[in-house]
């Protein structure tokens, strides 16, 4: 099967005045459909830059990038916007929902920019289905300030899924969440991954990375290690354990 993401010798150099900053220096990477990959690294390792390039928010200065068989490393702004709309779903650390806008409207938002017209009725059906996938159908008319952090992140995931992307890209999705909610969100990701969605996630938390299938560690803009997660955690099992532990404390 063709790789969803095919990076070969990707470079990114920022020119800041006199000094060139080599944020990414020669990354070659294939990610197949159905994979669940964690990209890790300390700050300054180039993981955010790599993430931006994978997400077509930024363009590499060297190397080539094929997304879903399409060379996206040379596309201009508008073409990249279309690719993002069609093929990539973003989940951010800060949720990035539109405030004072209902969950349903937030989920509908990417469809506004589709190249094909979708009727308002169809938009609603699709967004509702998307919210069902993350278990939030009953909160469709809540606004972000009426939702908990975990729920907001689920709305963001539903928004990322609404255009049926080939790739779900998550940038520190649990960074603003407590540990139990983090596990819940990882549970959502695992469920989606089981359903066949390819997920790439940037994180610096090893605990969180252990829910993925493959872990890539970057250092100084290069891949340091790239291996299968040895003892992969199951979010549902972990949650059960956590709940039992909590009950035990209460009983004691």
């Amino acid at each position, binding site marked *: 099967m063709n790789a969803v993401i095919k990076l070969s010798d990707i470079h990114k150099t920022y020119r800041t005045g006199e000094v060139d900053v080599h944020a990414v220096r020669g990354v070659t990477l294939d990610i197949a459909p159905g994979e669940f990959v964690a990209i890790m690294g300390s700050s300054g390792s180039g993981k955010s830059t790599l993430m931006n390039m994978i997400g077509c928010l930024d363009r590499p200065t060297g190397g080539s990038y094929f997304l879903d068989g399409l060379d996206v490393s040379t596309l201009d702004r508008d073409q990249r916007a279309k690719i*993002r*709309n069609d093929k990539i779903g973003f989940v951010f650390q800060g949720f*990035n929902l539109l405030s004072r*806008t209902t969950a349903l409207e937030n989920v509908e938002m990417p469809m506004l920019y589709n190249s094909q017209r979708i009727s308002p009725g169809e938009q609603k059906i699709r967004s509702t289905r998307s919210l069902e996938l993350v278990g939030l159908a009953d909160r469709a008319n809540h606004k972000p300030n009426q939702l908990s952090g975990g729920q907001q992140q689920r709305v963001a995931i539903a*928004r990322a899924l609404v255009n049926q992307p080939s790739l779900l890209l998550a940038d520190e999705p649990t960074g603003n969440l407590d540990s139990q909610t983090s596990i819940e969100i990882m549970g959502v990701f695992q469920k989606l991954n089981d359903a066949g969605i390819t997920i790439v996630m940037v994180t610096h938390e090893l605990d969180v990375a252990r829910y993925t299938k493959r872990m890539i560690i970057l250092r100084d803009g290069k891949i340091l290690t790239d291996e299968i997660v040895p003892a992969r955690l199951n979010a549902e099992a972990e949650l059960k354990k956590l709940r039992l532990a909590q009950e035990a404390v209460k009983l004691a």
Partner: protein
Amino acid sequence: MKFFAPFRLAGRALRRNKMRSLLTMLGVIIGVGSVIASVSITTGASKQVEDKVASLGQNIVTVFSGSFSSGGSRSGWGNAPTLTVDDAIAIKNEVANVVAVSPEVRDRMQILANGLNWNTAIQGESPDYPQIRDWDIADGAMFTDADVRSIAKVAVIGKTVVDQLFINEDPVGQTLIVRNIPFKIVGVLESKGFNLFGQDQDDVVIIPYTSHMRRIAKRTFVSSIMVQAASKDSITQVQEDINTLMRDRHKSAEPDFTVRTQLELMAMATSTTRIMSVLLAAIASVSLIVGGIGIMNIMLVSVTERTREIGIRMAVGARGRDILIQFLIEAVTLSAAGGIMGIALGMTAAKITSQITGWPTLTPFTWIGIACISSAAIGIVSGFYPAWKASRLDPIEALRYE
């Protein structure tokens, strides 16, 4: 992006900040309001003047005789003994598009009737006069060409004369005396009111011009010749042809006559109000520009405030163009809504002014259109820079913006 979606977005964004949106619109509201109010007032004023000019008659061209010098003292226009009845006949017969002609002789005299007396204008005219002046006979009838030929002692009188001399009486058939000559009253004119210069047009006695020249003024020349052109478009042609004809007939080096048209009078009478309206509109457009600057300012603030939103939209696939349109439509919605409110405000202000001062006001539809278009244009012009700035944002930077 779909056609209606940006309007929905704009509406939502503006509703989110109701107070701010209203305050932003205020600039345009006041600007458009003052344009509409000032235009309404000046248009009302010029309409009033135009009506007055129109009351002088339909498509009138007037030939005045020139001034003359006698022993070094120069008389005013209309006193040179050069214009004759023959000139009037020549105009009627030789100039194209002339429908009616009336040689005029005017004097002020004391008249007697019914044991009362009154000083009034005695005008010698032809039977065409009521038609030229667009002036109906209320009672009786106008004298005829036969009366003119027979130098008849008949008169048609105005409403003021009736009021002064024939209180509660039917004047038709009665007699009035001018310079000891009895004239039989054959008709009464409709009331026409005051003219442009504040003169009472109803204070008049009209008699055949022949009767006036032979029996009263005892002279051979006329003061002026009133000519009616066939239509508004032929006025200028008639004026030129009369000029040519008269120069030919009089053969003097200096023209001893002048030909004036109603169009000239109209232009003269409305020139002040036109200057006024241009001035007011200029002042009002300054306030419109200020309103536009207000919108630009708020849109710039709004773009900065919503940098993150722009970043999110771009991340999920909005192109620069989509963002540009979104903000542009927001700005246009602001200014157009302000424009519509301004029109309502301006019309209300004009109504109130007219109520208080009694001035007639009139809001022309063209200006409502101009106000709509210019307020939308202000939205586009003032919204473009902020919207363009928003569309050029880098999604990565915008997403990181706190």
